[in-house]
């Protein structure tokens, strides 16, 4: 069976809209009847990725491919790219600007959380070109 595909444009201008895509994915997964645990992991991993795209990359594209056995989340942006992936994967390390931290974001938990809640995480990044996260969650 072909996977079910959901696509979203994540708007980088509007912080208040961040999280809409993950919320919509959650609704779809509930309609399909995935387990609450899977839904929660997808929602958290995708939310963190979505927020990252808003903070660092002025938005981007989110694509979710759903099959019976896996849920694959692809988050692609045309942002500045990640300079040092090892550093970025450390809990508490953040390059988010001051004003974003004042909003309670940018605590340096984004990528570590995505890794924690997913089964596989692939990061393709190139400085000045953009970043694509491929997050795999087994159901």
């Amino acid at each position, binding site marked *: *069976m072909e996977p*079910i595909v959901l696509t979203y444009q994540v708007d980088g201008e509007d912080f208040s809209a961040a999280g809409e895509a993950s919320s919509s994915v*959650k609704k779809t997964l509930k309609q*399909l*009847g995935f387990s609450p*645990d899977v839904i*929660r992991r997808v929602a*958290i991993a995708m939310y963190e990725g979505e927020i990252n795209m808003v903070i660092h990359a002025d938005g981007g594209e989110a694509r979710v491919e759903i*099959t*019976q056995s896996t849920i694959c989340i692809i988050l692609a942006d045309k942002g500045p790219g990640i300079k040092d992936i090892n550093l970025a994967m450390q809990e508490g390390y953040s390059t988010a600007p001051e004003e974003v931290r004042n909003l309670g974001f940018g605590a340096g938990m984004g990528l570590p959380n995505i890794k924690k809640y997913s089964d596989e995480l692939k990061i393709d990044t190139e400085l000045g070109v953009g970043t694509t996260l491929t997050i795999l969650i087994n159901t």
Partner: protein
Amino acid sequence: MEYFHSVTLDAKRCRGCITCVKRCPTEAIRVKNGKATIIKERCIDCGECIRVCPHRAKKAVFDKLSLLDEFEYNVSLPAPALYGQFNNLDNVDYILNGLLDIGFDDVFEVARAAELVSECTRKIMNEPNQPKPIISTACPAIVRLIRVRFPKLIPHLLGVKAPVEIAASIARIEAEKKTGLPTEKIGVFFISPCPAKVTAMHQPLGTDDTDVSGVLAISDVYKPLLAAMNKIQQPKPLSECGLTGISWGYTGGEATALLRTRYLAADGMENVIKILEEIEDDKLLDVDFVELGACVSGCVGGCLNIENPYIARTRVRQLRKYMPVSSNRMKDFDLPAEDYFWHKPIEYDPVMQLDQDLQKAMMKMQEIQRIEKELPGIDCSACGSPSCHAFAVDVVEGTAKFSDCLIVLKNRLKDIME
């Protein structure tokens, strides 16, 4: 399973507008053949459709005062919200005496039981290994919402019975003692601000039985009660509740009674759903207790009240200043401790799920996506479904026809004309 609901439709008044369809938090309403119909398994009895209907076609179901005739001895359980319905009232005793004058033999204030629930909750919160946050179970519409939409949050439910249930049990025990009558001859009636409590009595969650004999509407009792209150010269002192109890009438009352600061209190379906989503995604880690109410302002906002919720709330708050903090303790009542708690687990009712079988559900979803692509996406609801997406689901489920979409029909017509 049979579903009882406390909402009915006055078909003569319903014009098939889509106001209720759009506002229903569980997408439980469709307009079919020009009339609003409820998908029974989805309705959570929040009363939103009753509140928003511009033609007053949605009606709440409740019992009538005449039901008292079927019992030998009747006890009234006034909700805290009732106290906010009267102008220039500085003493709750006028209301309680008035209830005796319109046919009740005794009163037991639900606010008293609310203080007991607060005490019980404080004890639970002090126990180790509680899920965080604990979610209040006082509003039946919220419990029903969680049951159909937020399965992961079921373990967070407090599981203490709502104050009205505790009040009914205590009032019944006391009436049996006082009169020596068998329990079936004693009527115990809730004076309710909301229809969700009617459903909670007919179809309780977390328990099999109820000590409530009937649920009367504040709006229905109001006229005879006001007339009786106006005749009272010097009311007998009957009120035995503190400000903790009556504060339960509005949002924040239950949460502040826990004497902790790490709480959140929210009301109105839209806000409540957002908060539940936050908890579901582990985004709300800094609170221990969450109080949620379906109605704006809490119980004073229930659709069976007379007064505007904000006015009622202000009045209840003003009544508080003549009251002690709390006047009721669990040890003062004969109700066994285990009767404060639910004794039946709440089970997830996946009414939004497309199919029990994942593969079938996925095939349906693909079909839904295919149909949705052909729809205009303007969510006009002229088809009778709340959105284009919901309409696509209805088509796949066989409860709507693709040609019910007016825009699709118009475009087809245009093609033929050209």
